[in-house]
């Protein structure tokens, strides 16, 4: 694979099936297949920023766990710089661990409460032997300054810090290994707007100055629009739309993206009319398009065909037979092999 523009991550028809068991009566249990991800294709190129949005339970965290190699796909391939992720991350000091850093939503829970901030940030520096022992304090101080924390925070413990400060410590620790990819699951949700704005500016700045690639799960479309060039919208385990964030949000092609867009709070507007119906159970997916039960544009053919992600406009892809923008990208109309669509590129 060539170096130029080669994707950092590539997901090829990734499927992740969890097996769950549930009691159906006294002493009776049944085993069910739960497809958390289904036919997911995604390429994440160097120095891009990608927002993952979608309904609760749509598979965003599962997708990220696959990228981190914490879950192995049940089917399909998940590649990091052209190699299977599970292979790339073998070995404690594999470059993968240095290259890909994660910020969790529960930053406080992800940090050992008995370690000082200095020790927490020094840990990855020592682990990857990034500098001589005596240079570590200076490096920690530089990282703290980078995330806008005063130097004396180094001596503090997580319990003594505010929520916003703890998030900054988690970001400093993630940056300590000098990663090229930062993956964040709801990293700014639940924070004050002013703290959130400070952290978003910090991440935007890191992306610009360090060439970081960002993968950002969020349910705030304003955050996605501000921080991420590209967006992927998930619904029930499937990526239903991809494209440049503001293009997708301003003129969605997939009816579910349109529903998301309408539901985003806007000053003094009435609260959006909810989608009719319930999100179907992932263990019992309906035939045809998985959004059909709630879709205002549904037609008879939607129940017959499960539409794959196909090109609707240059740079825009949607999994819909009757998209709102552009032309339908299903294989039936275009004749191109949409499931392995080569230009589903981010």
């Amino acid at each position, binding site marked *: 694979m060539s170096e130029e523009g080669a994707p950092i991550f590539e997901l090829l028809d990734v499927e992740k099936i969890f097996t769950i068991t549930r009691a159906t009566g006294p002493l009776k249990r049944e085993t069910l297949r739960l497809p958390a991800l289904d036919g997911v294709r995604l390429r994440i190129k160097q120095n891009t920023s990608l927002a993952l*949005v979608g309904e609760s339970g749509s598979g965003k965290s599962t997708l990220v766990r696959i990228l981190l190699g914490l879950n192995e796909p049940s089917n399909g391939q998940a590649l990091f710089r052209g190699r299977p992720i599970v292979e790339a991350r073998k070995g404690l000091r594999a470059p993968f661990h240095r290259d890909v850093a994660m910020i969790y939503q529960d930053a406080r829970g992800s940090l050992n409460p008995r370690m000082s901030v200095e020790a927490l940030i020094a840990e990855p520096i020592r682990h990857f032997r990034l500098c001589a022992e005596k240079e570590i304090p200076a490096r920690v101080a530089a990282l703290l300054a980078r995330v806008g924390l005063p130097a004396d925070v180094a001596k503090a413990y997580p319990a003594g810090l505010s929520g916003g400060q703890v998030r900054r410590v988690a970001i400093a620790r993630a940056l300590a290994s000098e990663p090229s990819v930062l993956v964040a699951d709801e990293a700014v949700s639940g924070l004050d707007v002013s*703290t*959130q*704005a*400070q952290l978003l500016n910090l991440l935007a700045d890191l992306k610009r100055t360090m060439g970081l690639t960002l993968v950002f799960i969020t349910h705030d479309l304003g955050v996605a629009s*501000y921080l991420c060039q590209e967006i992927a919208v998930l619904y029930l385990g499937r990526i239903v739309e991809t494209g440049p964030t503001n293009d997708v949000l301003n003129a969605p092609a997939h009816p579910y993206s349109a529903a998301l867009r309408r539901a985003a*709070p806007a000053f003094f507007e009435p609260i959006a009319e909810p989608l009719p119906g319930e999100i179907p159970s992932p263990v019992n997916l309906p035939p045809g398009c998985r959004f059909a039960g709630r879709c205002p544009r549904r037609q008879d053919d939607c129940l017959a065909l499960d539409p794959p992600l196909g090109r609707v406009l240059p740079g825009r892809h949607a999994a819909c037979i009757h998209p709102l923008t552009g032309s339908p990208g299903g294989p039936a109309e275009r004749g191109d092999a949409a499931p392995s669509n080569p230009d589903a590129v981010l």
Partner: protein
Amino acid sequence: MTALLSVQNLTLHRGSRRILDDVSFDVPKGGTLALVGESGAGKSTIAVALMGLLTRAEASVEGKAILEDTGDLFTLRPRAWTRIRGRRLAMIFQDAGAALDPCYTVGGQIVSTLRRNLGLSRKAARARAVELLESVGIPDAAARLGAYPHELSGGMQQRVMIAIALSGNPALLFADEPTSALDVTIQAQIMRLILDEVRAHGSSCIFVLHDLALASQSCDEVVVLYAGQVMEAGDAKTLLSDPRHPYTALLKSCVLEIGTAELTPPEGSVPSYDAMPAGCRFATRCPNALPRCAGEKPPLVPRDGRNVACWNPVGVPKAEAA
């Protein structure tokens, strides 16, 4: 509009820390009010204090909270509270998953709440539970009674909590960030559900929200808190479309809408309680601060159709402000 609840000069200490400083606001009868402000502003503290969930050992309270037909909540005896909590006053917590007991079925939890609050028989409570779940839009409600909380999605868990909170037909409902863990489509659905139910019962509701746009969509009144002080309060449309208080203006400038290209948040954060200015608590970060601000607390006074506590408000000529 008459007030259902009138909070007057509420000051609350935890030990030596003055968590709430002279907070006053009215909740209109049949109306909705949003408490907004940064983390640690005291929004949840107001809610738990008004629900009578703080013991004297935890916090000392001064001031009054007059509930129509009941009197001052802060002078109620524990016995009186058991008649009021869950019936006249009810609460929806931020994290429904944590508020529901994982060891009991959803139905069991609703039935026991109904029996406790309304004194219903087991059979009547079961029938009412099914009705309640149906009213909050849970399909196949009778079958769901046997489900454990983890078998429901986050949005469904929150709907169960709403059903429980509404089961006693409360006059006043507190909803503490009821949707912050949910995606925007479910958020819209849950907010509409709460508002529809509250209106149908003629109840009032206090929301704790961090999203100003959502507050503008759902509430009649807004109270902006900073570090336990009321900065600005009044009609949502007036206050949010044209803030007078520098802190409200700052909060509004940090709201991200689709297409927002630039954000200029203030640096720094809320001071710790040991370093709190004696006057206006926002003085350490305020772009409009005057020399007097840190030492002298501005009173909450009417200005341009809302109440503002500020010596140097936004959009007011200097001479007039002073």
